[in-house]
């Protein structure tokens, strides 16, 4: 908003502005990944030609329940014929839209509708597993896995980025709820 302080707020601001990182001892860490560019990519009529064209523009597409990274873009498999393209903060969403403009693919910018948290620590899968039906055992949900499932009663995309680093992404309006839910999860482990 011009002429006034233009506050660009992520979902958990300003309520949690004073405490942008949730850290409990050295066991775990929760921090918001701010202002990612997120594009939903839906293919209406899937065939080998479309697949080849998408690969040509975006690089190899991920297998089911996985993600791949190419040239600063992260591409997640969401469901048959649907992918999520994620750009780091400052990435230009319009570049991707222009890149795919000639393809029979529908692209929706959903950057503002999602909140993404980075979760770090061995305790993370244990906390998520308290209300998640997915088998998050490190030998099953390996690095590179990306799945939309149900966590804490929400539709959440769970991603294993690195051996100890996970990311969860959900509707922005649930950001505060998830933060509080996860915080309580931490407290369970503190008590033990």
């Amino acid at each position, binding site marked *: *908003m*011009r*002429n*006034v*302080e*233009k*506050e*660009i*707020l*992520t*979902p958990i601001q*300003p*309520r949690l502005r004073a405490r942008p990182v949730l850290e409990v001892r050295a066991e775990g860490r929760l921090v918001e990944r701010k*202002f990612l560019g997120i594009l*939903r990519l*839906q293919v*209406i*009529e899937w065939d080998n030609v479309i697949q080849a064209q998408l690969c040509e523009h975006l690089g190899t597409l991920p297998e*089911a*329940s996985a993600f791949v990274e190419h040239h600063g873009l992260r591409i997640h498999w969401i*469901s048959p014929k649907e992918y999520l393209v994620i750009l780091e903060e400052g990435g230009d969403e319009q570049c991707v839209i222009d890149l795919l403009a000639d393809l*029979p693919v*529908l692209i*929706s*910018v*959903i*950057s*503002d*509708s*999602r909140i993404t948290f980075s979760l770090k620590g061995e305790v993370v899968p244990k906390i998520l597993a*308290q*209300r*998640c*039906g*997915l088998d998050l055992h490190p*030998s099953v949900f390996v690095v590179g896995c990306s*799945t*939309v*499932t*149900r*966590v*804490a*009663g*929400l539709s959440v995309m769970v991603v294993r980025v690195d051996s100890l680093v996970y990311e969860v992404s959900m*509707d*922005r*309006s*649930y*950001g*505060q*709820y998830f933060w*509080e*839910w996860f915080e*309580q999860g931490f407290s369970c482990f503190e008590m033990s």
Partner: protein
Amino acid sequence: MRQQPGDAYWYTRGAPTDKQWLDFQYDVKVSDIELANRENFVSIEHVKRFTTNGMSVDQGKTSNVNALAVMAELSGRRIPEVGTTKFRPPYHPVTLGTIAGQRRGEAYLPRQILPAHDWHIDQGGVMQDYGWMRPDCYPQVGESEQAAIDREVMAVRNGVGMFDATPLGKIEVKGADAAIFLQRIYANNARSLKPGFARYGLMCNENGVVIDDGVFVRLTEDHFLCHCTSGNTARVYQWLEEWLQCEWPSLRVALSNQTSQWASATVSGPRARELMRLFESDIDFSCKAFSHMQFRSGQIDGVAARVLRASFTGELTYEISVPARYGLSLWKRIDALGQALNIVPYGVESLMVLRTEKGYLHIGVDTDGTTTPLDLGWGAPLSKKTDDFIGARSLLRSHDQRNDRLHFVGLQAIDSGQSLPLGGHIVSQVNVELPMESQGYCTSACYSPTLKRWIGLGLVSCGRERMNESVSIFANGKTVAAKVVSPTHLDVKGERLNA
């Protein structure tokens, strides 16, 4: 030492196969797959239908994996050769533990937070859990909630008010066949809508019963924005996906629920245009350039915005939407600019009074599980639609065309100070002797600060033929005298709306 996965173990060979279950929901056993194999079923889709394996709520991703693996072994093929059935969500099995989970106090149930949540709290908003936490009204110091609602309603009727409309459902429908898709979804005409224009739409189920309503906008030839009831968005989205994926998969359409992507603020009242002109914008807000039920995209104080002229209050209204990250800024900006016009924030309860005065129905409140568009008085517009739509056939049934069905009407208290009982039954006698036949019921009731009397809406048998008829409304052993009137209690000609 690195762990190695074990061999797949689909069933126990040599043991009775009629005691080895593959589908725990439909009790399909290994012996059923053996029978299918003996019957020479080859396609796994046929095996599924023959045995009912995977046809329960898991939709195949759990039990069909077991079945196709057994089928592969019995038929001497590899699993990829047998293939898979069409899996539907959930793509990954969901356990009961995920749904039930632990009790965690405040974090027990998910709740949605508005971008301007803290502003509402700071202004004394009485927050209510509607799934979204939303303000009902904003009482000032020493003011009762009823007084606050009356004040907010009068501010909208006489000046300008601001309402946080972020939860309003926003589903985008894109693709070459988007218009055809919506023509089948809505009871009224979607295909004739021109880009930049909006139209009110009713959605019915297969029985012709109204399940949702809202304003839909044609953004471009192949791109629509469909608004739906705030608390019904997820259900409507699933409804649309089901029809698209299961009934009309050949349509070139994709759907996206964009509700949280946008923060929406509604500016409503006779001075709304004055306020809109205070923004730095490339949009012409004059009535001539931007009339009721039109849509514009442009800049609002340097932010890409969508503006819709549609109203749920009966007043001149602009609904402004910006990317959610700017939601609080937009809200503060409207408040700051509106101070010169004595702008007042109004909440959900005040909106309910405003829409009742205008006679706008609220699906699920003013309708029940039997209400059709014909009951709502939409017979004439629908008769002009020649294309098929969901529920069209049902509306032709004689039962749906009976004259004694419950019609959507207005109700007015005879004694202006007498409250109308919400949910009270319409009866014809003052002194009720139970049992007595109910002729319908009062679906909405409120004190109208504009009309200085109690008013309501209701579903009344033969209601449209009973205008100005005196009735009694029975509740809790008492009756209240009322009159059946038009649902539109205020501004019948729509002059305020179209100003």
